[in-house]
């Protein structure tokens, strides 16, 4: 997993923080920080020296800039880390800031901020500093104003003991990835260690993993290269599943899309779409991004609402779809679960007369076609089946970064709240629509990229693979890698 993600710094968190270091392969040259242990702060500096990460030591004593400078020097930092103007971005890690939720008092409070604030040197308490806490739930971010100090950003990277009701699964957090972007954006995502290595290959559960390990197959590459005959001799792996598992491993190992089924894709030129909403259980789809053509040279169009929830763009979209794009299939990633029903619902609300024209249109969920239709038609590369992971594995690069669907939804929601709350329209901070639309454009181009590879796979469906499956196909795949 560590290899797959390639972090600059690793932070060990409870419950078994002390075993993280020893458990890691020595091959990794990584700073491993542990919070709340030792007498002095634990410090690491990223390779590009732009960011300094510091875990607070045990106790409650305030830290001094000198102490930190002295520690940081050993990591060879030239700039004075205490100087916010020239110094690197600071990222402090504590375990004393936590959330408590009391449904009976109907309140949720951030505890321990005051004590923590007292330990941090004055000049570091700036908007540039990011405060991470291992006592906050991974993915939780909040901005709190403390006294007259201005805003401080707190980001959870651990497990919370707060009473979060049915809002969380309650399982321990496996691993959290915090991405600090140069533009100040912070991305926090949970990552599941089981999506890495052999365990991440579809159809490989704990039992098969054990079987493969016993047979000396410990990496995805090794699985992809193992003779099929050998795999079928292993217990619990019939010929069919050995083939499936190996194809999946090969797709990951070689970053290619490999055919696994016999279904074809429409010969009509598809229209790629992606929607932006106000969350995963949305009440609006305020932006419909459309790509007309291929990933590189296709024409991108944004259908965006003109006023909050006016539905005007839906009509425009449908006019284009039924006019210029008549009879072409509409393709979306995970569309059966999200984009298509959300658009149906939106049309029902705003333009019931257009519902039939939309639902009668041939709609294809490219992810479903690849992984589900008649048992699946393609093995995908990438750590997960998320659009960006698959496209990334296929060598596609986005033009925006530090932004994802959830962030876009947040920005939109914040804007919508302002519009309604503010009488003076001029006072409303308008989001950078252009950036949001570019993000949406990235997604449809990523989709088109994947679709091209799916088409390639469909043309050469599984039948064309040599019956033994023993790697004769490798060479012919190079033009797709």
């Amino acid at each position, binding site marked *: 997993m560590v290899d797959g993600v390639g972090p600059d710094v690793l932070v060990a968190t409870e419950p078994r923080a002390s075993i993280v270091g020893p458990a890691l392969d020595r091959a990794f040259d990584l700073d491993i920080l542990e919070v709340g242990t030792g007498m002095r702060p634990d410090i690491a500096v990223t390779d590009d020296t732009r960011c300094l990460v510091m875990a607070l030591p045990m106790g409650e004593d305030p830290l001094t800039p000198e102490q930190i400078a002295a520690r940081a020097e050993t990591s060879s930092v030239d700039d004075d880390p205490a100087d916010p103007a020239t110094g690197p971005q600071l990222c402090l890690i504590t375990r004393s800031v936590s959330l408590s939720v009391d449904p*009976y008092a109907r309140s*949720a409070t951030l505890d321990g901020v005051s004590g923590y604030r007292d330990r941090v040197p004055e000049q570091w308490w700036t908007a540039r500093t990011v405060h991470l806490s291992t006592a906050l739930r991974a993915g939780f971010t909040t901005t709190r104003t403390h006294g007259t100090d201005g805003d401080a950003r707190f980001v959870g990277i651990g497990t919370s003991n707060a009473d979060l009701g*049915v809002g969380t699964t309650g399982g321990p957090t496996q691993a959290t990835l915090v991405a600090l972007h140069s533009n100040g954006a912070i991305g926090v995502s949970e990552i599941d260690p089981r999506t890495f290595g052999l365990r991440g290959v579809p159809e490989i559960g704990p039992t098969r993993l054990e079987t493969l390990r016993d047979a000396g197959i410990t990496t995805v590459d090794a699985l992809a290269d193992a003779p099929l005959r050998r795999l079928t001799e292993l217990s619990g792996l019939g010929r069919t599943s050995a083939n499936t598992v190996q194809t999946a491993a090969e797709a990951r190992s070689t970053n290619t899309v490999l055919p696994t089924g016999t279904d074809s894709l429409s010969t009509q030129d598809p229209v790629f779409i992606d929607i932006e909403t*106000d*969350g995963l*259980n949305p*009440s609006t789809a305020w932006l419909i991004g459309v790509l007309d053509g291929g990933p590189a040279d296709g024409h991108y169009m944004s259908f965006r609402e003109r006023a909050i929830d006016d539905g005007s763009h839906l009509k425009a979209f449908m006019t284009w779809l039924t006019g210029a794009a008549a009879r072409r299939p509409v393709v979306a990633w995970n569309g059966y679960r999200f984009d298509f029903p959300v658009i149906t619902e939106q049309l029902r609300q705003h333009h019931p007369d257009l519902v039939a024209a939309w639902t009668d249109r041939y709609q294809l969920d490219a992810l479903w076609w690849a992984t589900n239709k008649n048992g699946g038609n393609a093995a995908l590369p990438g750590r997960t089946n998320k659009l960006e992971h698959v496209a990334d594995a296929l060598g596609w690069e986005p033009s925006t970064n530090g932004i994802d669907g959830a962030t876009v939804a947040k920005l939109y929601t914040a804007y919508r*709240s302002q519009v*309604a709350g503010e009488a003076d329209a001029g006072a409303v901070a308008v989001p950078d629509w252009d950036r949001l639309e570019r993000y949406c454009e990235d997604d449809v181009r990523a989709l088109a990229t994947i679709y091209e590879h799916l088409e390639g796979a469909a043309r050469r469906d599984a039948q064309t693979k040599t019956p033994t499956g023993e790697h004769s196909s490798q060479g012919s795949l190079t033009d797709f890698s």
Partner: protein
Amino acid sequence: MTDNHSHRPEHAASTDTAVPVPDGGASRREILSESQLNESFPDWRERIRHRERLGAQSADTVAPDRVLHDPLASRLGHDLYSHQAEALDLLEADENVVITTSTSSGKTLIYQLQIGRNHLDTDTATALCLFPTKALTNDQEQALNDRLRGELGLDTHIGTYDGDTNDERKRTVRENANVILTNPAGLNVYLPRHAKDRGWHRFYSNLDLVVIDEGHEYGGVMGTHVAWILRRLRRVLAHYGADPQFVITTATIGNPAAHAATLTGAEFSVVNDDGSPRGARDIVLWEPPLDEEALDGNDDGTGDLMEGFERARRSSAREASSVTAHLAVNGIRTLQFTTARQGTEIGAKQTKGAARDHPRDQYVAVEPYHAGLGKRKRRAVENQLKAADLDAVISTNALELGIDIGSVDATVTDSYPGTKQSFWQQIGRAGRGTSDALSVLVGGTDAMDAYILDNPGYLFDDDTVEDAVVSIDNDRVFADHLLAAAAERPLTAADAPYLGGDDRFREMTAMWQDAGLLERSGDLDAGGVTYAGDRRPQSRISLYGTTGTDYEVIRANGEIEHDPVATERAYRDYHEGALFLHAGQQYEVTAVDHGQPHPRIHVEAVATTQYTQTLSTKRVQNLEVTDHTSLADGYDVYFGTGTVRITYGSYMARDYRTGELVKGPLPTETPPLDLRTELLWVSLPEDHAGSTITGLDAPLLEPTERAGDDPRVPMEQARYTYAGGLHAAEHGIIQLAPLELMIDNHDIGGLSTPSHPHETIPGPTWFVHDGIDGGIGFSKAIYEHIETLAARTREHIAECECGRRRGCPLCVMSEDCGNNNDPLDTATGTMILDDLLAAFDARS
């Protein structure tokens, strides 16, 4: 609130002759004749405490064309009962209707016809029917098909949609059904699919009718959840522009309109004037002989009175078997309901034995019946009974709910089933239709039974039945359902009426926004607030508890169909070593895994003659007053919230045949449990202990040996005696609370103490608290009925036949007592309740 009484008693003339069965033909007339009774029960005169004759009632009918249009009127081959017509008229007038008429009075026909009527108006109309169990759902799907498609010839598509329905069938149902049948737990998880699965849009947009069958089932914890699920449903429906009518059927309860309103958030009209015909019915209250010797032998000052009473108690199950045998020997098919620990198998054996011991030494065919038997065996018993191949069936209360076992001539109830509602439901099993019936209640050994045998008027004269108790005040439950609602559709200001009202809705939304589970940047007044937590919050809502945590019960040596157990009950009743009775079978808890997020209780079926009793210590803190009743002279009753810390530290095992202590106290190894819950407390004047002891005629009590080992029990005689009085008053009220309220008093706890640091408590006090985190409205309901309950309790304690200072299980002793019923003093308890009632009287 509407008074409700569907029984019209005609009082029997005298009690000194045998019970007549005049309408039952010559042989039946004989059964309870003096000579027959003399044969079976030489001392029967002492045992029959009361008999009540409910006369036959003829049908009050209305021609179908008065209410229904054609073709329904002509296709329905019979008249409607007046209550059916009344309900249909109300539905025609756009009212929501709650129907509380008696068992088998044809309540289901009402919603069947309404569905038919809606369908004929608009063939796209849909209806949603909720049933408490899957078994009942299957029964009703069949009944609906027979009625709508068969008898009424309508082209309606009817489908069950629950955990047993496969995906393909589910899709067909979603896309085509006019009527969907499911249960509230199912609706909880299907609701969020409304915008995702094809078909729901059609179904919800066209929804005209929501049917909630057996609405009285939704009280307590389950009721709280169901109330929120129904609000979430209404909110989603509002989005689809649907505002359906509700039909709720319920057993007879005291507060049908209020109960229906709390469950759904809508207003209801009540239909309770029963027009269905009924045969005459005799009800006999039968008191088993008490083995006085067993009692006297144990009043030795050790404080372990339960022992003697257990020995005395075993007579009630045995006595019930004798009564059943008497009826069976005389050719009366009988259904006996038992709650006895020994189970239905031994009950059946005892009945056969009693028939052999009968002077006529007769073989009777008797079978046990309980949920643990397995489907095939249960069906076999049901069929044998229908075919008249059995003389008697000994059943747990599994038979209470709707399942049609066919008709029997008589019922025998071993121990009062806890509520009038289930009492009448059990009785209703005898003599379906217009045939005559006989029912016998054999009194058990606890306070409710004793009260009823002493005051039969409670069952027959009093025009009221218990109130169903459901509450939506538990904020923890609300908080969870708010997340569920947000995951169904983003929250907006318009949702407030469905989701707790404006203030509560906004405050709880803000809390979840602060906690990051609802989108922080969202605004209720501007576009809405979306859900930001882990997927599918609905799947983590447990309808069996309020804390989101419940324990799965796993049987090592076979299957067990046991509902998940709420944390509170797991700590008390399912610690390692605990024995419990479930569906007629004894189980022992072999291990408890408290690990989150899926705690488990491992059990094994055992054959044992033991049962366990858990002991606890308790502390009440963080009191906050939300309501206050000020009485005269420094007496006060408060209602509010607080934290109750309970440590179920040890347990004892006893033999249920003798009550003898087999082992213990043994440690439970259970950690302390903190309940943030609702409670009431009765605050007495500062000097009340002193003045009461001064006024006490009887001698002071000598502290028991056991009390000497318990640091919380005062050892000085006067304080020991007074503490016994407080404790007795607390127990008495909790034990008799079900007389007024349909509540399970196992989910209520109490604590009495001579002093407490809270500012509202200058002197002695006792607390009554909900045993469920966050509260489920039980102590609130008791607070609202405290004067009536205190009066009943006072009367009952003072008049208890035991006449003992330390009381007995018939008055103030409780199996759930964490203190092993020590100290208890009925004399001081009576004085304390007298003082409290006087303070009520002197108020104003």
